[in-house]
């Protein structure tokens, strides 16, 4: 008997993702992005993203089916991101997924976007060790999760109290005159720089601070002040050193807290996810610190770290296999869906 074929929809931000997964096998991962339309605004404009999702939806489904070499009628279940994310954007994917499930007469699984970021790693590295720790960092989220059972039970240990890590990259990139999104250009510039050149602050790392929460707002402001002081003094800004030192501060805090959470909870597997997990320094430092602490580090390929439909299909596939009941017919989107709700 072949395993069920699951069609996954992701539209929580600016990526229209449609993926197909059979069991733990990735069959296709079709993506349309409206990123270029947001560039001149310096951030994702929700209405522009929602319009783009509507235009891209059916063509992206066709690409996913064609890449996988299957027919819509072969699909056994549909999964969709129900939250968290931008409401207007979520609703396009949710309505499409509900309609495909209805028209194909298959069950519908609404899923939590953050849990899907963890599930996607199973497509590359096999069954998730449970419990695992997960560090999810992107332009929209910065979360540290304890995962006793990804199908039913995920616990939030910590999150950002202000900016998401990815937002800090975008804002620092702007200060340094780099394009949006800021992650890739900062990573590139940092390779020529010295990460220990400037001692930027590490937020929420004092003895009385919440051990697993993050704060990147102070860091972003410190970088801006440092650069502006240089400019006011008429001195050249060492862009590579600023980028490397900023990136070092982010990677340092993220990995230190993740490793500490593993140690405190007796967990020896850590999964990275989200767009910022594509950052080369974060990956390198996580590898170094996990190796030193005896933690097995699992990082999906950069393409699967960013938002995509395959991650939603991966979690849907897991829910089907675990015998979790499908979502109710009146499933809606929840822009602030809490992480302990894996399948709303």
């Amino acid at each position, binding site marked *: 008997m072949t395993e069920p074929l699951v069609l996954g929809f992701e539209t929580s931000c600016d990526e229209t993702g449609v993926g197909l997964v059979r069991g733990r096998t990735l069959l296709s991962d079709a993506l349309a992005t409206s990123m270029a339309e947001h560039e*001149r*605004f*310096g951030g994702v*404009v929700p*209405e*522009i993203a*929602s*319009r783009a*999702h*509507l235009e891209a*939806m*059916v063509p992206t*489904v*066709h690409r996913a089916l064609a890449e996988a070499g299957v027919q*819509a009628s072969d699909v056994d279940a549909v999964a969709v991101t129900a939250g968290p994310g931008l*409401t*207007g954007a979520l*609703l*396009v994917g*949710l*309505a*499409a997924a*509900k*309609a*495909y*499930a*209805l*028209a*194909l*007469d298959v069950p519908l699984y609404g899923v939590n976007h953050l849990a899907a970021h963890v599930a996607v790693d199973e497509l590359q590295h096999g069954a998730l060790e449970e419990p695992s720790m997960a560090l999810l960092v992107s332009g929209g989220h910065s979360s540290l999760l304890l995962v006793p059972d990804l199908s039913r039970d995920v616990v939030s240990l910590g999150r950002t109290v202000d900016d998401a890590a990815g937002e800090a990259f975008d*804002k620092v990139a*702007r*200060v340094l005159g780099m394009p949006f999104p800021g992650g890739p250009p900062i990573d590139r510039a940092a390779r020529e720089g010295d990460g220990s050149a400037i001692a930027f602050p590490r937020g929420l790392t004092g003895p009385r601070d919440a051990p697993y929460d993050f704060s990147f707002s102070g860091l*972003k*402001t410190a970088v*801006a*002040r440092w650069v*502006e002081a240089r400019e006011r003094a008429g001195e050249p800004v060492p862009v590579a050193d600023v980028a490397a030192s900023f990136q070092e501060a982010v990677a340092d805090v993220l990995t230190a807290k993740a490793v500490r959470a593993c140690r405190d909870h007796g967990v020896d597997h850590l999964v990275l996810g989200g767009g910022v997990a594509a950052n080369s320094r974060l990956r390198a430092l996580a590898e170094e610190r996990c190796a030193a602490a005896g933690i097995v580090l699992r990082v999906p390929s950069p393409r699967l770290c960013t938002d995509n439909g395959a991650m939603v299909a991966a979690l849907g596939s897991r829910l089907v296999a675990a015998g979790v009941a499908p979502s109710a*017919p*009146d*499933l*809606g*989107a929840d822009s602030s869906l809490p992480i302990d709700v894996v399948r709303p």
Partner: protein
Amino acid sequence: MLVLALDTATPTLLAGVARRSADGAVEVLAERAVPSGTRHAELLTPAIRDVLAEAGATLGDIGAVVTGLGPGPFTGLRVGIVTAAAIADARGLPVVGVCSLDAVGDGARTVVTDARRKEVYWAAYDASGARVQGPDVVRPEGAELPGPFVGDPAFAARLGAPVEAAEVTTTGLLRAAAGQLDDPAAAAPLVPLYLRRPDATPPTSFKPVTTS
């Protein structure tokens, strides 16, 4: 042929199943108008199930899908359009989009619906029911729109004239879709009637982050 008709351009979502004869005659078999406010995405597929069951039909019996393209509040509007597009795609059916205002009332009239921000969406029709002005979006005060008005009675005071209550109907959607249903190959692509640009203006200059 059975036709599935959907509209989410107003706070009342509409799902209907109708039989359309070769001569264009329409018999509505089941219809749900659900005052769903901002819950279109939650309630539309359940409403479709309900009207199919009441009509004694399955999606396998449906020959075409008709959807309103607005104008209407964007977030809700997209729910109906993407639902129609997805059902049609999954079942290999033709899908036809029409101006939602065309499906409100009949005969000579001006249709007004809530565009929020103190404005109305409107379109005017002649005695034969053909649209002669609009769709457009305007502040009702001083707009000097032609009457008689049908649609959202909440705007009577601001239009300075009575507005006969009327909503999108299955009959209205099929009437507006008649030409495209007769020749589905000529059906226009499903492009929403937004009538407004996205709310976003590019910043002209970025202020320094530390400026207080």
